[in-house]
């Protein structure tokens, strides 16, 4: 345990922020370039995870447990969202036989 703590001691907070931003952006890019709804949802999960890590880093940095508690809530949300989202996808798939978001363009204008 000690070594772990020591290992992390040297990492500047900035690098955590940057790292999380990168992951977040990768999530965004994933949302942008994929057409498969499930993969888009996965990309969103990536975004959420980057936030989780960021919160944890801040929490560790300031020594305040609230951040980590918040992460817990985000996880709860992620679970809920995935459940609902997948349910919607299943429902849509039943009607359209597709999970391609480009097929979703009847409502427009």
């Amino acid at each position: 345990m000690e070594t772990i703590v020591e290992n992390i001691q040297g990492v500047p907070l900035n690098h955590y922020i940057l790292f999380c931003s990168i992951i977040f952006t990768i999530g965004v890019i994933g949302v942008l370039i994929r057409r498969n709804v499930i993969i888009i949802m996965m990309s969103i999960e990536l975004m959420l995870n980057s936030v989780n890590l960021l919160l944890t880093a801040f929490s560790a940095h300031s020594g305040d447990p609230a951040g980590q508690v918040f992460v817990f809530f985000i996880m709860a949300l992620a679970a809920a969202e995935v459940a609902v989202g997948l349910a919607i996808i299943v429902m849509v798939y039943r009607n359209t036989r597709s999970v391609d978001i480009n097929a979703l363009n009847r409502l427009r204008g």
Partner: protein
Amino acid sequence: MSAIITLSLLAILLLYLGLFKAKTALLPVSLLGLVAAAGLNIAGWDQAAKPLYSGMVLFDPFAIAFSVLCIVITALVLLLSKDYFDQRSPHVAEYYALLLFSLTGATLVTSFHNLAMLFIGIEIMSVALYILAGIRKRDFASNEAALKYFLMGAFSTGFLLFGIALLYGASGSFDLAQIKQYVVSNPQAISPLFYAGILLVLIGLVFKVGAAPFHFWTPDVYDGAPILITTFMSTVVKTAAFAGFLRLFYFCFAPLQDFWMPALLVITVITLFVGNITALVQQSFKRMLAYSSISHAGYLLFAIVGMGAASAESVLIYATAYSFATVVAFGTLILVKRATGSDHFEAFNGLARKNPYLALTLTIAMLSLAGIPLTAGFVGKFMMFSGVLADYQVLLVILAVINAAMGIFYYFRVIVAMYFRPLDRDQIAVSGYYSAVLWIAVLITVILGVYPTWLTGLI
């Protein structure tokens, strides 16, 4: 607080009622519950309210006023549901329960005092709506609306959360009071993280209220969702989102107004123009209302742009005016669509001949949306303009004026259709629930328009 408990318990109760096939009891029970919630809320009226539960929620007059507004509108929507969902879906109980869950979320959003509560409130509200938007499982439009709403909502949640994380990183807390403390105590040394956080939270919230350029979900979802869900979304959800928005920004970020205000100003202007101009060319009444709701979001943003002591009051009055008028509009649309199967403007042709009073209520609603004096909409616009002008944003008001004039065009289209385009049609039967809801809403609209004093000075 007890209101939130009441509401959540009520929702669960309804689920059980559904389980026991007690369909007829659903509406009375939920109405009773809503009345109780509203009553409990009002009973807790306290100018000097303190945050509860370790600073998680704060039921000050602001929160209570908005919660009660949301509850009242939900009650109206439920009254309209009686004839709407009962006939076409076997999942009525779930429907009622989800609406009430969403309402619970909305109440949380109006009363949060901790970013965690804001986040959870928004999510409860939204997740319930993702489901409700798709509740017509066989309807393609409904499916599409649900999926679009879900995808974009989840995506924007990412931004909101990232923003919250940054705010936390900078200020070290989720508690509004402490964040405010952070802003006030070191005005010179505010971390850039904090600024970025504000912007990201802004994106998340602006998405929820449907302001341009984060509005793209609005028309499609409003259009695709069942009419009553749209009603709920464009009234309760929008009101709650604005309440939360205002609460956060007024309470915490007001001192940094110079930073975020110009950005929001641009958003406001774009929202106004996009909403109005696109609404002009719509053929569907429903879709027009969706775009008009975007433009109303623009007007509501005025209160935040022209941040001041009166902002809360203006938002409350504007939201009240807008919500009641919207309820009337959608309520009428339901009736018309049921009779004609279309939600285009043409469907309203000649309505005034056979249903003069229905036409009259819709007319008053439209006038209110357009902001004509002696309706609540005017008082709302008036207060918005006052607030912004107090900040010397003359140009913004001039732009808003142009938009308000454009608004006339599409709001009057339906009036034109009802009164001036003759068509032989059958009289539409208006059930008691509907006429009650419509008249209540119209009466409130007019009374608020003539004598708004009973709402001003409340908070």
